[in-house]
């Protein structure tokens, strides 16, 4: 079985400062991985590097996406191949309706797959169906993308887009930040509804509470640019109780 995502000794820096110092991670079909860690450990950097943000320079290692070298692809190609990033801070695009934006995105992906653009009526029906997954009102379709949306609405819009693009691997970057408990539940149930045996989810989070709703198969702790500990979901609970300091100390001793 080919892993969906195979990260080997990935190193990346920004402004000559190394943030990722050799990440190894294998994600197989059907799996949910949680990446946890204290602030500044490199969690969001990992998400950005996977998605291809140019602020970061990859200085070593490789990332195979369904067996194909991801790092050689442009950000849009990565997306079209099936990598989705739910942003921690989704941008607002004034004057571009959510419907128009999502339609443009979906049709780019369809074009990449050699498929015809969807008929407008079928498209609208699909959008309404997928919006229901995250309990979004269809009136959002006509509003400018994320403009004037609350924090929770923006995050639900991210998961709605994920549902529309139907990615192979979805990376959720701190999707729980700024969410109240109801929004958290809605977002999580949307993500769970999209789980299938042939896709995978990487959940980046600071807190354990999201993992009550999106139950991970594996939990990894990122600290100082490395994965210092991996385990099952019980690791997340342990972190909740003990914090990160004990891991930092262990890691320092090992280093």
């Amino acid at each position, binding site marked *: 079985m080919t892993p969906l995502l195979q990260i080997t000794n990935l190193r990346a820096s920004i402004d000559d400062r190394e943030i990722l110092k050799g990440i190894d991670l294998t994600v197989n079909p059907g799996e949910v991985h949680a990446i946890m860690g204290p602030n500044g450990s490199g969690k969001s950097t990992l998400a950005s590097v996977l*998605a*291809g*943000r*140019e602020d970061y320079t990859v200085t070593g290692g490789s990332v195979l996406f369904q067996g194909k070298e991801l790092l050689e692809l*442009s*950000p*849009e190609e*990565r*997306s*079209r191949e099936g990598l*989705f*990033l739910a*942003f921690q801070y*989704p*941008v607002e*695009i*004034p*004057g*571009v309706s959510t419907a*128009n*934006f999502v339609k*443009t*995105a979906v049709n*780019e*992906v369809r074009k*990449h797959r050699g498929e015809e653009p969807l008929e407008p009526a079928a498209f609208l029906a699909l959008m309404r169906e997928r919006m229901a997954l995250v309990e979004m009102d269809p009136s959002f379709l006509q509003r*400018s993308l994320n403009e004037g949306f609350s924090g929770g609405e923006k995050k639900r819009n991210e998961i709605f*887009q994920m549902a529309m*693009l139907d990615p192979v691997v979805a990376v959720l970057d701190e999707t729980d930040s700024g969410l109240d408990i109801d929004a958290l539940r809605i977002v999580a149930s949307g993500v769970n509804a999209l789980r299938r045996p042939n896709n995978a989810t990487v959940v980046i989070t600071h807190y354990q509470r999201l993992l009550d709703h999106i139950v991970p198969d594996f939990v990894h702790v990122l600290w100082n640019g490395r994965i210092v500990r991996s385990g099952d979901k019980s690791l997340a609970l342990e972190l909740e109780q003990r914090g990160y300091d004990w891991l930092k100390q262990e890691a320092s001793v090992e280093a």
Partner: protein
Amino acid sequence: MDQQTVLDEVVSSEYKYGFTSNIEQELLPKGLNHDVIRFISAKKNEPEWMLEWRLKAYEQWLTMKEPTWPNVDYPPVDFQDIIYWAAPKKKPELNSLDEVDPEILATFEKLGIPLEEQKVLAGVAVDVVLDSVSVKTTFQEKLAELGIIFCPISEALETHPELVRKYIGTVVPTNDNFYSALNSAVFSDGSFVYIPKGVRCPIELSTYFRINARNTGQFERTLIIADEGSYVSYLEGCTAPQRDENQLHAAVVELIAHDRAEIKYSTVQNWFPGDKDGKGGIYNFVTKRGICAGVDSKISWTQVETGSAITWKYPSVILKGDNSIGEFYSVAVTNNKQQADTGTKMIHIGRNTRSRIVSKGISAGVSQNSYRGLVKVLPVAQGARNFSQCDSLLIGDACGAHTFPYLEVANSSAIVEHEATTSKIGEDMLFYCNQRGIDTEAAVALIVNGYAREVLNQLPMEFAVEAQKLLAISLEGSVG
């Protein structure tokens, strides 16, 4: 592809409509004098008063100086190095498109605006001005049934001279400015529209202009009169072939709206902007002005300006009638070395007059984009209101955006609001689009069209689609 690469491509994108039609033409030698004006007037079988009017304008022009206040920079124009008359040698009398010179049809094919399709699909009557002589007028008969006159102004001078004489020069006097004087002296052709009392023009009236003769200045003259209680929507769109020499375009458009009449005037302007080094390109020095002469009348200007090397253009409204409304919606794109100084004037005279200005400037490359607008409220204009919104969008960091708003308010009951923003297309926005599978080029088009939405929404549907494509083409290496 990083942002710089895309920007470089954007900056190096060449004008896509650069080609020259090979139609036989009749040219006058370069230069301007009394005889040239007499020649033009005679060619068009004009009445004597028209010739006198032209000659008077010429005398005025001789005493005037080119304006130097716009925020643009270009080498001096040699007005004696311009050909003031060019017409296709054969002036065909046509009843159907089949009779149109195949070269002309091919030209429109290249422009992507096949006449036949336009007519059938869009229900648009097209009065095509190819260089200086109108070649084709359609839907005349249907419009005539309603009493609507829509024809070349040269034809109107023959068939309805009293109407032309009554209105021409009443909104833009011959000596209004240097270029209006020049236009008045040498105008070649243009459109004339008259909508009778109470008639709502059932179709969008449209003219496609096209500069087609080497070294030929284009001096269009358009006059639109909406009589009491009537309505008309007029569309003007233009593209021009690639050239090495600069070409002067000095049009005058006058609109007159009587009591309760409404005129909607939409422009998509895509004259050749010059190459990426700023060579060639059209000088677009245009005077457009409307008067809301009657009570409860309305004039609305919408423009999408993407072309021309230099743009100098301020479609304005004189709000004379009580309760009249003036609107100006503008998207002006400058790329490479283009320079635009454009905006509007809203002159409030009547009571309870209202005006609205929405200007969206988009600058890329090393271009300079200026908004210049005047809101003037006269002492008698009790209860006048104005709202102005002037936004600038910058693409890259080598271009310039400037705003010159002028307010002259002489009535204390007036309410005048002005909002302005300047923004850049941020890397965050582009990366977000990229992450959704949208490449940077398409993302810029999407963002720019979103930014210009409020203005594009003012355009008739088929024109809006064209304008969206044009924005994309103007800013990118390719469409979609």
